[in-house]
């Protein structure tokens, strides 16, 4: 069964470009395209695609508003949403994360990273475009950090066990479940169990929220 994808971007050139790339994959199917936020919301709710690629800036409803309604706090059956940005300095990272976005991908990232981002979001076992997501999270943590240089001590680990913290650290560095299992000498099943516990304890909806929590609380530097 292929991964169904919704593309939402107000720029036709970007939409068709993404569609060419994604349609060339045997396991991905673009089921809808939207040119503005309202249309994106309607189509996503109607078709419930596995992954929605949303431009952050769109006329009408912005991408942030759409992601809030698709996967934000309190949404019963959240969809997986990847935010698409022009630069990796967009100031909306924080909002997007709080509203349940699974990750970020640059419009200019190229076919390989785009396809990988869609697959990672669909599987949920790796950060979406780890390089850009990690960079964004680091910057976010720095901009909120108390002063510069001083590394924060994790004050509240929310009852995570040392092993769970190891897993969190690995997630924040962009490792996949398989890679975490490899690094920590655990079985894949154990990694998944740890992650489920972590998600419950942190009340995190997805992997990127675990990573964001880790950066904010100085679990990783």
């Amino acid at each position, binding site marked *: 069964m292929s991964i169904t994808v919704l593309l939402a971007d107000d720029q036709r050139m970007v939409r068709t470009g993404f569609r060419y*790339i994604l349609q060339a994959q045997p396991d991905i199917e673009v089921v809808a395209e939207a040119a503005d936020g309202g249309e994106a919301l309607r189509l996503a709710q109607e078709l419930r695609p596995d992954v929605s690629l949303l431009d952050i800036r769109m006329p009408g409803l912005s991408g942030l508003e759409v992601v809030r309604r698709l996967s934000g706090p309190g949404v019963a059956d959240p969809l997986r949403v990847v935010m698409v940005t022009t630069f990796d300095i967009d100031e909306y990272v924080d909002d997007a994360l709080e509203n349940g976005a699974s990750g970020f991908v640059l419009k200019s990232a190229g076919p390989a990273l785009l396809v990988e981002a869609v697959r990672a979001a669909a599987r949920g076992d790796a950060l979406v475009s780890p390089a850009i997501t990690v960079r964004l999270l680091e910057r976010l943590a720095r901009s909120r950090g108390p002063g510069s240089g001083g590394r924060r001590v994790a004050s509240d680990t929310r009852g995570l066990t040392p092993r769970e913290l190891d897993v969190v650290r690995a997630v924040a560095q962009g490792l996949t479940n398989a890679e975490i299992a490899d690094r920590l000498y655990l079985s894949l099943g154990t990694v998944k169990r740890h992650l489920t516990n972590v998600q419950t304890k942190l009340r995190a909806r997805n992997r990127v929220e675990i990573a964001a929590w880790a950066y904010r609380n100085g679990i990783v530097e």
Partner: protein
Amino acid sequence: MPGEPRARAATGPRWGPSVPATVAVAGAAAVLAAAWAIDLVHAVDRSALPHVGGWWAYPPVVSGAVMALLTLGALPPGASPRRTGLLGICALLTTSLVSLAYHLAPGDTPGHPDGLAEVLAMVGAVSLIAYRCRPWVVAVAAALTLAAPLLSETLRAGRPADLDAALVLLFLLAPGLYLRWRVERRRWQVERVRQEERDTLARDLHDVVAHHVTGIVVQAQALRYVDDPHLARAALPDIERAGLDALEAMQRLVTALRGGHPVSADLPDAAEGLRALCRPGGGSRARVEVRITGDPGLLPREVASAVVRMAQEALTNADRHAHGAGLITVVLDVTAGRARLEVRDDGRGGPVGPGSGGYGLVGMAERAALLGGSLDAGPAPEGTGWRVVAVLPTGRAPVAGRSGG
């Protein structure tokens, strides 16, 4: 480097500050010199009077000269606050020292007769300090200014002097402080305008240049990836147009950065600008629907910009005045030679005439007239609500550099 006239032209007038500065200093010097000459003549006259005591007529002449020179030293526009403060305070101290000298003089000597040059130099010194120096220096200058007449009166007469003269002198701070306020305010305004300009540039870079370049990059990546010559050929016109649009936007930015006309942050694309006005209804706000017929991409930039601005203005008016409106429709119809924009609501907009809600209408009408078009606003001919219709000619030359259509 020789032969760079363009860069030079963009930097504005080369008329440096040295000319007005020279004029100012020379003028002040002339006035002070004239005042000092008058002081000298008076002193000579006074020295002949029996009760003045010969040489005791001359100290104000000496201090007048010293103070005039000190003040002139502090006067040039380039003088630092430090120099201004130091020379100005010295000038103010000089007159107090002369008062003290009179106090210590033999018993029958009269008090300190103020010289005209002394007073003028004092005015200059105090103004310059109030204009340029830190608050504590200004406070010291104010205290010395207040002290000078009190000191000379008190020491001369042996009784507390009237406050009048002191207060008058203290008022001398006012012009300097006023100028200072003006300068600060201007600096603040300039800074604000610059910040706005920078924001505009950043927005233009992000929204226009990056937008188009991203489209080109994504298409190129995708077309290389799928490797289909037919798709590639079909994509070329879009890529070309995006490239041209990006170039045009960059040209505007370069012009703005060189100090030419400020850039307009307006997106040149009327369709995009209008679509951005769409919104769902909710709360006290009416739903907004946008319909576009024809190809707004053909509109000249200024018409496209005017269309978007007018639609925004009309929406603002409708929000403000159309009571009970549930739906506002924005319709743009582009046909050969003209663009027609209609914004109407279904509310009770009756009482709103050009008198009360007309501020925006005036602007819209002006904009339309400038572009050779017309604007009509009034109750909708059929049904309820208010209607604004703008018709703008698009007959001027199509946007340069656009091939095809």
